[in-house]
């Protein structure tokens, strides 16, 4: 039976056959049918990376397999969500080593996109904390790979958008934390230049940093709040919250209590956004504010509202995330904001820095500034993003495949210099092109 599948951006939509294996043997049975398919998790990649005419839902392969309390290495099946991992590890004094801005993606989805978090400048992407992967190849064989064994497959899978095989399980090195809270310093900036400077100057001091910027204001576009954080120590928490914290590190998150229904039209419109941005900017009067923030609102503010992507109505939205090297980075960002502002109002703009860490051939991060921009979907903004992508390429930057739905093959080839290495490995592990998505077809990855 056909189901409608789509990414977090809610467009494009495809009719697909869905397989939902509940164990390893069922995965092999599906693969034995020799259909073209692509692994799918929570559907949290924004574009068409997890859509195809047939998809293999890994959501039932969501079990914890082993946990070593001394090293913090957690072995779990790929279909488990970050949400579930936190529920397990936080009460035991551990937290995700790297987390994207939502806790709903699956572990395997995060591996396939080699996600980064607010701590990329120091900790690197998720790949830096993955010790080992268990991958089911197209022929049904299970392969263990790591930095030492089958390193080529390991690295191609980190960021490989699920095109090397089904990511059955991963071994993640968690980080120790003393509480569920973070120490946050919020710095209000008055221009893009200042935002960039604060981000760069604080890299050594804070493990987490990210900036929300206002792209819609007339003067001082790019002004915003830079949020600098670190996991709070236990004694600090006891000073602030009182000794009642006891042996606990603090509460784990709750499921969202608000949800957005299907809407006939987009509620994300220019005037509302400008008002929101102004209010949000003015919310902080002082230049520098310190606070203790629970990890849930700190890392996952948007997760408080289930299905917030439905605010954008039936046409959905798209996110454009790119990275540009520090040199000229600010100028390129400025020019791109100018260009996209003419096409559509940006609903949300998030800026941060990437450090220098090893990645796979399709790994996104390079040292520089990365900016993520959300737009209501329209032809005008797709065209603007196309031109903006050329600017990114010219500056030596690249676009994030987990968010992409509009990139072209030529653009991909121009921005990922190790793309042939990836294609070559794919030829080895999937010679009959069994794993394909709408994205991989569009980008000539398969």
């Amino acid at each position, binding site marked *: *039976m056909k*189901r*409608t*599948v789509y990414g977090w951006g809610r467009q494009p939509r495809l009719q697909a056959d*869905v397989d*939902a294996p*509940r*164990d*390893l*043997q069922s995965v092999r049975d599906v693969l034995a049918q020799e259909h073209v398919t692509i692994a799918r998790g929570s559907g949290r990649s924004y574009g068409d990376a997890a859509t195809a005419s047939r998809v293999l*839902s890994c*959501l*039932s*392969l969501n*079990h*914890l*397999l*082993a*946990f070593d309390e001394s090293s913090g290495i957690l072995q779990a*099946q790929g279909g488990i969500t970050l949400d579930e991992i936190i529920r*397990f590890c936080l009460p035991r004094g551990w937290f995700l080593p790297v987390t994207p801005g939502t806790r709903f993606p699956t572990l395997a989805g995060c591996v396939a996109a080699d996600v980064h978090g607010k701590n990329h400048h120091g900790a690197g992407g998720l790949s830096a904390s993955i010790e080992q992967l268990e991958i089911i190849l197209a022929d049904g064989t299970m392969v263990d790979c790591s930095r030492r064994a089958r390193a080529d497959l390991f690295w191609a899978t980190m960021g490989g958008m699920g095109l090397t095989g089904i990511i059955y399980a991963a071994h993640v090195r968690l980080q120790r934390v003393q509480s569920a809270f973070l120490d946050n310093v919020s710095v209000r900036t008055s221009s893009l230049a200042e935002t960039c400077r604060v981000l760069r100057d604080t890299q050594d001091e804070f493990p987490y940093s990210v900036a929300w910027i206002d792209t819609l204001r007339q003067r001082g576009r790019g002004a915003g709040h830079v949020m600098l954080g670190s996991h709070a120590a236990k004694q600090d928490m006891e000073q602030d919250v009182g000794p009642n914290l006891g042996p606990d590190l603090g509460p784990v998150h709750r499921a969202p209590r608000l949800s957005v229904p299907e809407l006939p039209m987009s509620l994300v419109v220019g005037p509302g956004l400008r008002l929101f941005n102004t209010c949000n900017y003015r919310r902080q009067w002082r230049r520098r504010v310190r606070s203790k923030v629970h990890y849930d609102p700190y890392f996952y503010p948007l997760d408080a509202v289930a299905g917030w992507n439905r605010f954008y109505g039936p046409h959905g939205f798209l996110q454009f995330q790119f990275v540009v090297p520090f040199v000229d980075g600010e100028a390129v960002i400025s020019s791109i904001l100018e260009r996209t502002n003419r096409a559509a109002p940006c609903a949300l703009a998030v800026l941060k820095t990437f450090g220098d860490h090893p990645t796979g051939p399709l790994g996104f991060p390079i040292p520089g500034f990365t900016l993520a921009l959300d737009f209501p979907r329209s032809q005008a903004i797709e065209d603007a993003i196309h031109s903006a992508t050329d600017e990114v390429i010219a500056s030596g930057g690249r676009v994030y495949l987990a968010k992409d739905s509009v990139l072209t093959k030529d653009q991909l080839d121009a921005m990922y210099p190790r793309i042939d290495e990836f294609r070559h490995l794919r030829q080895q592990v999937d010679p009959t092109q069994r794993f394909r998505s709408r994205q991989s077809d569009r980008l000539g990855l398969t």
Partner: protein
Amino acid sequence: MTKLNPHTTRRALVLGARSAIAEAIAQRLAQDGWDLVLAARASDSLEPVAADLRLRTDRSIHLLDFDALDMDGHESLAQRVRTEAGEFHLVICVFGHMGDADEERQKTAQMLQTLTTNFTAAAVCLAHIANDFEARGEGGIIGISSVAGDRGRQSNYPYGAAKAGVSVFLQGLRNRLAAKGIHVLTVKPGFVDTPMTQGKEGMFLVASPKRVASDILRAWHKKRDVIYTPWFWRWLLLVIRLVPERIFKRLKL
């Protein structure tokens, strides 16, 4: 159910442990402090499920090979559980089979599989377990029936007929065992949300397996006899049952 000594371990046997509902029930039971025997075909493949439960709850989780269609094996099932895992005090019968309606009409084997798995196997198996509980004078039975058993509809009446049989069978068991203090709970779930049903046309009011599991456990503690989960199906089905047959037969359901 007889009052259990809190100092002795309570162990529950889950029959057909591979399904999403079974797994959600197992999670809830383990959280509530039950040790578990997870019974399914090729039970080795449930090792990840067991590992997960052990990590989260520290309970003892035992995997047991069990084939619902092996009718001769049912008589010795209770003894086998006892030998391999230890004494058990609750059985939850979750196994079932939802076939393709078109294939069932055409192929004897498909029709038989739907009828046998859902009704005959459940009845034979629970009959023997009931004998065992009766002899011991303790135990409890939870049987998963379905709202589909409340009225035959053209889209899935073989499944519905088998589940109707299950409901009546459990009713009889309850009547027989009530005097012995052995409680029998009939569960009638509506549509349940699994990765398989996501985005499927014609599904409405779907509930998560988690929700269904927590409804079941609550009903068990309250010693309810028959529950619909989620609760609104009781009233929906009441309305559906009240439609006169002369009208009902013309509906496309």
